[in-house]
C-alpha cells in the first residue's frame, strides 16, 4: 500500500492503494466515483473510458502507480463546466439526439467521442465516418447510429 496523488475532476486527491490496483477500482471502490462503468476489465468494451490530460483512456487497464501527481483525470462527473454547470456540447448532443437507452455504456461513449473529435482536429480535419468506425466502445442496446449523429452535431459546437 502506498499513497497516490492526482487531480480528479479539478480536485487534488490522495488515496491509499496498492501500486498495481487498476485506476478503475481506485475511482469506483475507494473514491466512490461511479460514472466510469465496469464492462470487462480488459480494455475492450470501453465502458470505463475517462480522460487523462484530455486524452481518452481506460482506467481498468492502468495501475494507479502509473498516474503522476500532475495528471488530470476527468470522469463523466467532471465533464460539465465547473463554474457554470453547463453541459459539455457532447453531453448536450446526447440529449438532443436522445442517444441513450439503458445508459450503462454512455458515460464511456461520451468521453471517447470527445477525444475522437479532438484527435481529428489535431490532425487537421473534421470527424468522418472512418473516425467514427474507430470508436471501439460496445453498446449492447445498439445505439450506434444515434451516437454517430450526436458526435457529428457536437463536433460542430466544440
Amino acid at each position: 500500500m502506498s499513497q497516490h496523488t492526482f487531480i480528479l475532476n479539478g480536485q487534488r486527491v490522495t488515496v491509499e492503494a496498492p501500486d498495481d490496483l487498476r485506476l478503475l477500482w481506485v475511482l469506483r471502490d475507494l473514491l466512490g466515483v461511479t460514472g466510469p462503468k465496469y464492462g470487462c476489465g480488459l480494455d475492450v468494451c470501453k465502458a470505463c473510458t475517462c480522460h487523462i490530460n484530455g486524452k481518452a483512456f481506460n482506467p481498468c487497464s492502468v495501475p494507479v502507480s502509473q498516474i503522476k501527481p500532475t495528471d488530470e483525470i476527468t470522469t463523466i462527473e467532471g465533464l460539465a463546466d465547473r463554474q457554470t454547470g453547463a453541459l459539455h456540447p457532447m453531453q448536450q448532443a446526447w440529449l438532443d439526439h436522445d442517444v441513450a437507452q439503458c445508459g450503462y455504456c454512455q458515460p464511456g461513449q461520451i468521453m471517447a467521442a470527445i477525444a475522437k473529435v479532438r484527435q481529428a482536429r489535431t490532425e487537421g480535419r473534421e470527424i468522418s465516418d472512418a473516425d467514427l468506425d474507430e470508436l471501439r466502445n460496445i453498446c449492447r442496446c445498439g445505439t450506434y447510429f444515434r451516437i454517430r449523429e450526436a458526435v457529428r452535431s457536437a463536433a460542430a459546437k466544440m
Partner: protein
Amino acid sequence: MRRRRFLGYLLAAPTLAVAAEIGGAAVDPDTAEGAIPSPPEPADTYDLSDALTDAAMPTANLITVQVNPDGTASFALPRAEVGQGITTAIGMLIAEELDLPLSKVTVTLADARPELLFNQLTGGSNTIHAMYQPVRTAAAIARARLLATAAAQWGVPVSSLSVKNGVIRSGNGKTASYGSLARAAASDTVRPVTVTPKPESAFTLVGTPQNRVDAHDIVTGKKKFTLDLAVPNAKPTMVCRPPTINGTVRAVRNLAQVRAMPGITDVAVVSTGVAVRGETFGQCIDAVRALQVTWGPGSVDGESDDTVLDKLKAATPPPAVPPVLTKSIDAEFVFAFASNSALETNCAIADVRKDRAEIWSGLKSPITTQEQIAKMLGLPVSAVTVHVTQGGGSFGRKLFGDAALEAAEISHKIGKPVKLMWHRTDDFRHGRAHPMSYSRIRVNYSGANVVSYEQRHASSATDFSHGLGEILTATSAKLPVGELGFSETVFTLSQSVPYNFGATTQTLTEVPLKFHTGSMRNVYSPNVVCARELVVDQLAAKMSQDPVAFRRSFFKDDRFRAVLDKLAQVGQWGRSMPKGTAQGVGFHHEYKSCSAVLVEIDCRPETVNREVRDGVTGPRVTKAVMVVDVGRPINPRGLQAQMMGCISDGIGLALTESLHIADGLPLEGSWDNFFYTRQWNTPTEMQIVVMPTTTGDPGGAGELGVASSLAAVACAYARATGTMPTRFPINHGTLGFDPLPRVPPIPQSPTDGLKYAF
C-alpha cells in the same frame, strides 16, 4: 361509440392515492384473408401478449398512482427498466391523463410484490400492452378526484373547471395546483369508483416523440445501477468458476493462502464455485486467479457445437407433406448459440441476516427470485426484501435472478453483506445463452400458388423457469393449444406465418441439454423467421417474382401490406446496386405489431477484408430502413430507439455474433471474442418509420424488430453473393480469436492502458 368505463379505487392515504387493476380489455382477433387461405394458427387469434395480459386478470392486484403535495405524481412500476424506455412511456400515460407535464411524473421501479402473483414479469414485450389501461384508469381517477375536490371547495360544478399543466382553473378565474389539493383530495377509506379515461382522440402527449426521462442522469453519470449503490459494508465480491459449465468444487488447495492476500476479507466455497470478498474488485480478481481449485465435471463436458447439432438433427421430425403433383423447396438452417449478456454483467447486492434478507438487483421476475431466495435461506417470503434496480441492459438475461441468488448464498455463508459482480469472461462462459437451433423447411408449390408450408424447428432446450411458465400454466385452460409444454406453448403462441401458404404447420422440438440457457430478445422468432424469409425469397425466385411483390401478394393482412409498401417506397426498393452489393427485405409480425426491414449490404472484397485490430469486419450493412406498425405508438422516439437496437442485433446475429461451444464451455471470453455489432459494422444510413395509429391497441415493440432485421440482412447477403446462407452467423465457421485459458477462469486486467490513449 360509447366510451368504456373502468373500475378503480380511491385508497386510504394521507395524500391522494388511487389504484386500478392490471388486466387489459379484450382484444379483437385479427382476421385472415387471401389466396389459398391458411386456417388461422393459434398465434393469429390469441397470442403471447393476450396470454400474458389475461394471466393478470383473475388476480385482484393493484397498481397505485399518488399525487404529492409538491404537485408531482408518482408511480412505482411493477416492471424492470433495462433500457427499453418503459419508465418514460408509462410516465407519458400518467402525464397525459392527469394533464401534468411529463417532468412532474416520477416513475420508479417497485420492489418485488408477491401479492401480484403473476403480474410482475417483464417480458414478451408486454409492458405497454398490459399497463396501458390500468395506468390510464388510475390517473383518470386521480384527475377526477382533484377536480371534484376543487369544485367542492369553490362551490362550483366540476363541468366549469379546466386543467392545464397540473393547475385547475374555474370559470371565474380561481386557480389551484394539484399539489395544493393533494391532501384535501385524499380518501380516508378504500372506495371503488368508476371512471372514463380521456378519449384517445384528445391525446396531446401520448403519441408524440419524447426523450427518455433519465437521459440527463445518464449523460452526467448520475444514473445508479446495482454496482453503483452504496450499501453499508457490501464489499466487492467475485466467484472463481469452473472450467466447464456446472463444474463443481472438489477441493480448494490454497484456501488459507488466498484468505491472507491483501485486501481479501473472506473466501468461501459455494454451489457455483469459490467466492472471494475484498476491499476492491481489483483485489478480488487477483484472489480468483490465485485460487487453486480441484474441479469435478460439469453437466455438458462432452458437448461441442458439432455434438449438439447432431442431436438437434436427430430429434427433428421429417416433413409430413409429400410433394404430390407439386414442386417443392427443401431447406435447412443452423443457428449457433448466442450470448444474451448485457454490458452490465450479472450483479447483485445481498445483505442476509439471521431473520431477514435484503437484495438489490436488476430483475425482470423479482417475485420468482424472492421466492427462490426465501426457500434457499429458510425464511418466509415476507422476510426477503427484493429491490428492483435500474438495469444496464437485459436482452433476456435479467429474466433470471442468477446473481441475486448467488449473492444471497454468499452473504448467508460468510455472514456479511456482499456486492457481487460477475467477471466479463464468466458472463459469456457461465452466463445464459440463446441455445443453438436447427430449422428444416419444406414448401410445396404449384404454378403461382403455395400449397403447403412446413417448418420443423429444433432447439437445445430454453430455460423458462423464471416464471413465464407459471403465467402460461395459470391461463392454460383458456389457451387454444391444448396440452403443450411451456416452451411449445411459447413457440405456438408467438410463431405464425404472415403469408397464405395453404396448409401451414410450424413445430418446435426441444433437446434437453444442461447448458445455461434463457430467452434472448425476440426468443424463437429471429431464427424461425430468418429461415422462413430466406425460403420466401427462394419461392419468389422460382416463380420469377420480385421478393417484395411476392410477399405483398401472399400477405394475410392489409396492415402488413401497408407496412411493406411504405418500406419499398422509403427504402427505394429495387434501385440499381453495384455488383457484390444488394438490397434485402425481411418481415415479421408478433405482439400485435409488425415490422418490415430493408437493408443494403456490401459484400465486396475491399469491404469484407477491412482490417480492424482484434475485431471482425466482413460484409457491411451500409443502410437500414425499418417500417414499424405497433397499433398505437405511445412514444415514437423511444420506439425508434428500440428498433435501431433491433437492427444492431439483427446485423450481429446474421454476420458475426455467436458462441463456439467446445468441450462443455463457450470459448468466448470478451467483447473482442463475442462479436456483437460494433461501430465499424454499423450502417451509415438508417431510418425508422413509425406508422401512425392503426388498430388503436398498443402492441408490443421491445423485441419486434430483431427477427425482421436478421432476416433482411440474410436475404440481402444471399442476393449480393448469389448463395443462400444456411449457417448463422455466416462467419461462425472461422474462429476469429485466440481463446482465453479456462484456468484460471478469468484473465488479469492489462497494465498498458496508457499506450492506447487518444
